[in-house]
């Protein structure tokens, strides 16, 4: 499995307890920065009705979808609650104040 980390911007450009978008050919990705600084990348599409997760309220390592309040665990992409559902997550890391995203995983998403 190849890894291809590319620099997508400064860590500080993503607000703490907030999110930014990254446009990709396969649709938008939401980049989250949790209260403790942890970064997460997930598809910006809620498993319920495709709500833009990047617009939700971030709390702990979770985000609440802005449309109908589904809560997603950003670490696993799993939705909490009985309805379940799952959103795809991507490898991401911070190095020297920059955000590195594994684009090979994005390509595999395209292929899948």
């Amino acid at each position: 499995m190849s890894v291809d980390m590319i620099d997508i911007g400064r860590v500080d450009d993503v607000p703490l307890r907030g999110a930014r978008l990254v446009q990709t050919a396969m649709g938008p990705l939401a980049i989250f920065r949790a209260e403790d600084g942890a970064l997460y990348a997930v598809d910006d599409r809620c498993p319920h009705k495709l709500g833009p997760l990047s617009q939700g309220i971030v709390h702990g390592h979770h985000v609440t979808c802005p449309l109908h309040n589904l809560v997603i665990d950003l670490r696993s992409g799993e939705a909490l609650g009985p309805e379940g559902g799952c959103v795809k997550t991507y490898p991401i890391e911070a190095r020297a104040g920059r955000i590195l995203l594994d684009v090979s995983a994005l390509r595999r998403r395209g292929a899948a």
Partner: protein
Amino acid sequence: MDENPALTPETAHMPKREKLVIIGNGMAPGRMLEVLLDLAPEKYDIAIFNAEPRVNYDRILLSPVLSGEKSFEEIIIHGDGWYIDHGITLYKGHKVVEIDRAAKLVRSEHGAVEAYDRLVIATGSLPIIIPVPGATRPGVLTYRDLDDVTAMLLASKSRGDAVVIGGGLLGLEATAGLAEQGMKVTVVHLMPTLMERQLDASAGHLLAKALERRGITVLTGANTKEIMGGTHVTGVRLEDGREIPASLVVMAVGIRPNIALAKQAGIETHRGIIVDEQLRTSDPAIFALGECAEFGGATFGLVAPLYEMAKVLAATLADREAAFAPAATATKLKVTGINLFSAGDFADAPGREEIVLRDAARDVYRRLVLEDDRLVGTVMYGEVSDGVWFFDLIKSGAPVGAMRETLIFGEAYASGAPLDPMAAVAALPDEAEICGCNGVCKGKITAAITSKGLTDLDGVRAHTKASASCGSCTGLVEKLLQLTLGETYLPGKPAGICPCTDLGHGDVRRLIIARELKTIPDVMQALQWKSSGGCAKCRPALNYYLLATWPGEYKDDAQSRFINERVHANIQKDGTYSVVPRMWGGMTSANELRAIADVVDKFAIPAVKVTGGQRIDLLGVRKDDLPAVWRDLNRAGLVSGHAYGKALRTVKTCVGTDWCRFGTQDSTGLGIRLEKFLWGSWTPAKVKLAVSGCPRNCAEATCKDVGVICIDSGYEIHFAGAAGLDIKGTEVLGHAKTEDEALEIIAGLIQLYREQGYYLERIYKWAKRVGTDTIRQLIMEDRERRQALLARFIHAQKFSQTDPWAERAMGAEAHEFSPLADLSRLEAAQ
């Protein structure tokens, strides 16, 4: 009663029973008999004489009968059936006029005679009548029994003026009740502050203010000189010459133990009938019980110690060992809407320390008095839910040093490791008394819950009377319900805001102020949030509470706002946004409409709709385009309509005197003025207004959060309507003569709501929770308070009346409106 059980066949062979005679059928002997019948059901033949022509009732609930909240039937403790079931002879309306100790007989004024082996004197107290000229004039009443209440209710029909002499517990309950019945009441109190025996001066002062807000006149330091009138009272003259007109005067200046009968029989008396630890008088066959008894130099005027006496006497009469020892007592004023509690000894004394908590904005006052590391007294006004807990600490005398820092905040915050009140209640023995007023123990409550299948507080009240009197044990009863029913019990008290905390919205608001918490992390830390970063439910609530509490000081936390309020537009189902510019009072112009049309063309906005709120909605705007759309709209003077916010939304108007042939006032102008004054303010939930030019009400003002109906004489101001999930017509708040007055009233109302509302609670729900009458009084009858509210509103507006669209069009929060990176070409290339 001829069915004397001693003579029925089943019992005829048993040894002859002793004869127990009781004089007085009040609350104390009623309780004593209940216990005695449990302990020794067969021991006595019992006869009771009662000067009142009725069964035993709950005297302490006379005030709710006076105010109209309860009927007499609801306060009966033992109905006729109870006496029959227990074979007790009850002489109703028989006053005993003689005790013949030599012959061991008593005789009533109607000539009924009973012989006794043992006699109980329980004649209670007599109200004190101050010996001023005119004190016996018709129209002067006391407050002691049902006949007094009936007479007061009759007198109140006139809706005239009443004077209550005495600002103690009884006097104030009479005052509130008479005011509730429509009388204009003045309380005349000799001491400088009200209820000085139960309250300290600060709490007494808050109480006086609360009564004055209800239209009651409070005169303290006032000495009555004469009761004026001829064949009926016409007023009261004070020492200083003032005269207060009155068609009814109630004297409630205190009570005196009723000892005449005992004295006449040669039994030893002092202030009361002197008794020993077993309640025995100087005659070993005679006992005294209740308010007429004096023990260790003290007499008692509250039911809790009297019930303790009742238990001891029942045991003594059942030939068991027991000894009376008076404990600390607690007082609660039973006036709906006024919360007041005091317990123990709270006088200043050397070696005592005090801890005081005040919240002037919401009239909360708490004082704890400590001595040798122990709580000895407390006075609470406003928020009294912790009273029972403090009272327990006083009674147990447990050291409080470890939790001294937080003691004043009550049980929930008292110790670093929060003690589990549930476990504490679970650990109580079955005999532990839960309801002090009605003497109901834990075992009786849990048994009733299980055997009667009770599921709520009302059920427990109906079946056991626990929590049915003064209500201070309600929290404990709820915990018992919870323990007994487990998961299935849904308590009526406010639940925690969300799973991150057990604290309800009210507690959190109170603590933010009391502990001066100024950031969300501070709140979470100080109030022991159970999650690290809160959740999507509590964070927006906290953000609002902090913003409303510390205007200008608190820095808004965008990440704790729902997306609509973060980006100042409404998110749509496809992730695009809608844009609703303000159209002041529903008015627009060619210039504004042209700007809107241009923006729609320029940004290819797919839908334009006229909203239900008299303005125009541009739907389907791409998020990235929002700042540019706003910039163009701003140029034509169009600003944010806050269609997305828990904030002032629309002010709908009709055309009013400008055009309409029926218009009585300039409804459009007032609507615009209101909107310009109120816009930008954040509120617990959205706020919508409307102003109609006449009662035809074309602006539908009577289903809004706040509505104004213009009439010839001015403005009728309404509030608490709803027309969304619920439909509810408004309530009238009051009348304003001028636009300025209308504005002041409405802004005052909105500020009160901003300070008291729970997050997401619309005005009609808030009004239901705190009471529309209370709100009306605070806003309409207390001009000073209203102006203070207005001043706080104006202060807060200084920090909120900047157009959020303009700020963002100028580049604020730019990260919201542009992607971090665009990888679409990169991916495509590979």
